[in-house]
């Protein structure tokens, strides 16, 4: 009985050696992912989404300026949502594109388009 126990102990020790390497390898991978890869990915993702959002805002801004130049009534309502549907219906926007990070496009106090997620009106 005790011999069997010893044998199984030895076997688990021998197997445990490989399992230990696997666990260490996995832990290193997880730690690297948590502290390096994942933050880098999120940083890169938010940067790319920021660039896209800025470009969409610029397009909307141009569309609003075109709209106001061709209409007597301005579409700008300070502090309110930008009416993208109207801009598209009237042909000032080719397509409705939203912020990749689900922000909403609104007018700020100066009448410029801002994103509720990215905030910047510039």
């Amino acid at each position, binding site marked *: 009985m005790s011999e069997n126990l010893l044998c199984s102990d030895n076997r688990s020790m021998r197997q445990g050696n490989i399992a230990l390497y696997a666990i260490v390898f996995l832990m290193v991978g997880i730690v690297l992912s948590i502290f390096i890869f994942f933050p880098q990915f999120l940083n890169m*993702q938010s940067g*790319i989404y920021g*660039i*896209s959002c*800025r*470009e*969409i805002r610029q397009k909307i801004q141009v569309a609003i300026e075109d709209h106001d130049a061709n209409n007597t009534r301005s579409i700008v309502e300070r502090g309110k949502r930008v009416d993208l549907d109207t801009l598209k219906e009237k042909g000032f926007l080719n397509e409705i*594109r939203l912020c*990749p990070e689900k922000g909403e496009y609104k007018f700020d106090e100066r009448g410029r388009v801002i994103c509720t997620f990215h905030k910047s009106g510039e």
Partner: protein
Amino acid sequence: MNKHRRRTYLIKTGLQLRYMGIIISTMLLVAFGVGWIIYHTSWSRIANTPDLTLDKLSDIFDSVNTILMRWIIVFILAIAILSIFVSHKIAGPVYRLEETAKFIASGDLTQQIQLRHGDELQDLQEAFNLMSDSLRKMVAKDREVIDKLVMTGSRLREKIDQKKLSPESIEEVTRELHVVIEELRLVTSGFKIEEGQNEETGDDDAEKDGQDTA
């Protein structure tokens, strides 16, 4: 602890190099695959978007990530399946060795290992079969000697029963017994059963004991 420290790392060069090759080629294949997927998906999306503007960058980024995730899952599955086949080439022989060793330990010396073509550990299989052959031969010889011993014993019994116990006949039976015992000793003297004991010492002891018996 130091006694078991690894000194020679390439001890089974062919086997180790083969597995090194498998690991390196798999890693290269995955690296090349993932690299090509990133390169192809991102650049093909860029090239195939006619009115490309920076606002579509997030769409390209998302689609590349989605495609990459799908392909990584495919790669993981492919490697998992491949690793089952590769590991089976070594796990199969190890399993057969374990099972055969158990049979031999239980006393069945007729067991031989037959590995499939392409399996690893073919050298170990040959060595193992050689060991089981030599054990079988030793046991056969052992039995042969025991039979002789039984026959000699029977002859001695006959002589005792027939009351033909002259000094010459006693001498003759004793000589026969001695010869058989010597044979038996020779069969077992080939085994090393103690640390530090060598074959020569075993043989010398056997001779010495034989002389004492005589």
